């Protein structure tokens, strides 16, 4: 069965600093991968997704992620963090042939210092 691991439960960065959130997956075939963000009091919003092709994908709000098959990773990056990026971030993998279902990682809570 597929699984997703986000090794960092909490991360704190200074505003303007770069950000990398880690995601590792376990899946037997080429995965469909996603990053979602949950701002306080909000539902989840899709940041970006990877299905195939170019391994560097661009998303909304200036985020990007890189798929590395050799490392089973799909890390999320942003070159300069804004205070409004403080939120919880979830990595997810789609379950193939299973009606659009997702398996989520445990989440990483990002705090931004002024």
């Amino acid at each position: 069965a597929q699984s997703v691991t986000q090794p960092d439960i909490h991360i704190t960065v200074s505003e303007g600093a770069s950000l990398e959130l880690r995601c590792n997956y376990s899946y037997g075939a080429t995965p469909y991968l996603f990053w979602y963000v949950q701002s306080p009091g909000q539902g989840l919003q899709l940041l970006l997704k990877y299905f195939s092709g170019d391994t560097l994908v661009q998303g909304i709000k200036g985020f990007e992620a890189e798929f590395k098959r050799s490392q089973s990773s799909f890390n999320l990056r942003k070159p300069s963090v804004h205070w409004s990026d403080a939120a919880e971030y979830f990595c997810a993998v789609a379950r193939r042939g299973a009606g659009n279902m997702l398996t989520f990682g445990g989440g990483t809570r990002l705090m931004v210092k002024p």
Partner: protein
Amino acid sequence: DVKVTQSSRYLVKRTGEKVFLECVQDMDHENMFWYRQDPGLGLRLIYFSYDVKMKEKGDIPEGYSVSREKKERFSLILESASTNQTSMYLCASSFARASGRVYNEQFFGPGTRLTVL
């Protein structure tokens, strides 16, 4: 704009009560989902529905049931609430996977924080 709404943002119930959580989507989506969100565990799928009156168990269905009588509405039912069901509950919806599309995005509601005393 896709809208997924949940009937309550906060709910407090007593042990043994029957609890209904309602979710409504306005995009004519075939698929609807109920997740439970707990710190460090992320989102875990409770139940999934791909059509009216159709449902499938997710990863943690024990203690829960669901109802989908209309396409736009998906209800989560806790037959006899217990303290270990205190959690955040998220509803989501998506189109079914159509021919030629690998995946359809899930859209999420704002969540219901349920406390069982």
